[in-house]
């Protein structure tokens, strides 16, 4: 682009529109890879843990979820290092905060339930006197769906909003119909619809 001072009004508007659109495309495209990566991690871990749970022991294999966070963050760090130069934007920060909050809530919930399962915390701590039916897969699916829907709203993408609704509500009610390792198949489906499909959609839409 050269320094040209003889611009027409139309050319000026075209430059403004092109610059903003190009910048938006780059940011959207770069937000797709982490979504696909985390989606693949959740799908593979869900199926792997479900297999181990069913064939080689019991729910103790759920401890492997802690490894997911390690693998996920290591992959994310590599993706961040190799991705294109992208600027800091309000939209990027909002999406980052939404998914960080999701991670903190799911991690916190998983840790508390894990400690209770191991006997390190008393069951009465979370279920004092009333009988509560808790299904962690339902709750995590709902959080997934909300994260995806908010991402779709922030980047104004209808497909992602619909994927978020389907993953969140479908996963919440779907998980209630299954028990044991079968719930992990629901988790895999939720990650496929709530993370991988939106990630691939963003990536395809923003290819130059």
């Amino acid at each position, binding site marked *: 682009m050269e320094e040209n*001072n003889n611009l027409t009004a139309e050319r000026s508007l075209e430059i403004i529109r092109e610059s903003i659109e190009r*910048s938006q495309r780059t940011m959207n495209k770069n937000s797709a890879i982490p979504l696909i990566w985390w989606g693949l991690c959740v799908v593979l871990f869900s199926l792997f843990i479900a297999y181990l749970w069913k064939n080689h022991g019991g729910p103790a294999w759920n401890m492997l979820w802690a490894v997911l966070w390690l693998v996920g963050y290591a992959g994310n760090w590599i993706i961040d290092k190799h991705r294109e130069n992208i600027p*800091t934007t309000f939209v990027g920060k909002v999406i980052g905060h939404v998914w960080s909050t999701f991670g903190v809530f799911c991690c916190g919930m998983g840790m508390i339930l894990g400690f209770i399962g191991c006997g390190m915390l008393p069951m009465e701590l979370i279920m004092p006197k009333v009988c509560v039916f808790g299904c962690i897969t339902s709750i995590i699916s709902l959080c997934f769906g909300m994260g995806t829907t908010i991402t779709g709203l922030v980047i104004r993408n209808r497909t992602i909003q619909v994927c978020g609704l389907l993953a969140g509500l479908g996963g919440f009610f779907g998980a209630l119909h299954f028990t044991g390792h079968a719930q992990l198949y629901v988790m895999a489906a939720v990650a496929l619809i709530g993370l991988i499909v939106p990630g691939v959609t963003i990536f395809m839409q923003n290819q130059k």
Partner: protein
Amino acid sequence: MFKPLDPLLHSELRLAVVSLLISTEEAEFPYIREQTGATAGNLSVQIDKLSAAGYIEVEKTFKGRKPCTLCRITPAGVKAFEEYVEALKSYLKVKTK
């Protein structure tokens, strides 16, 4: 009646730089170079002009061990951009009449 166009923004490269920065909080020099397709020397000169006018802030910092130049738009830059777009509208209105 045509409104006057800010001569500092009425340049292809400077307008592209400000348009990029308007939609971001801050951007690194290589990103702006990639997006505008300008040469490093030319871009540097134009960024200096915008910075001297108070339209953008330039911060020289480090990213790990590598030097990193960060650019961000200032409130004066946002105001100038808004006025430029308003002025453009007056030209377009005349043409569409």
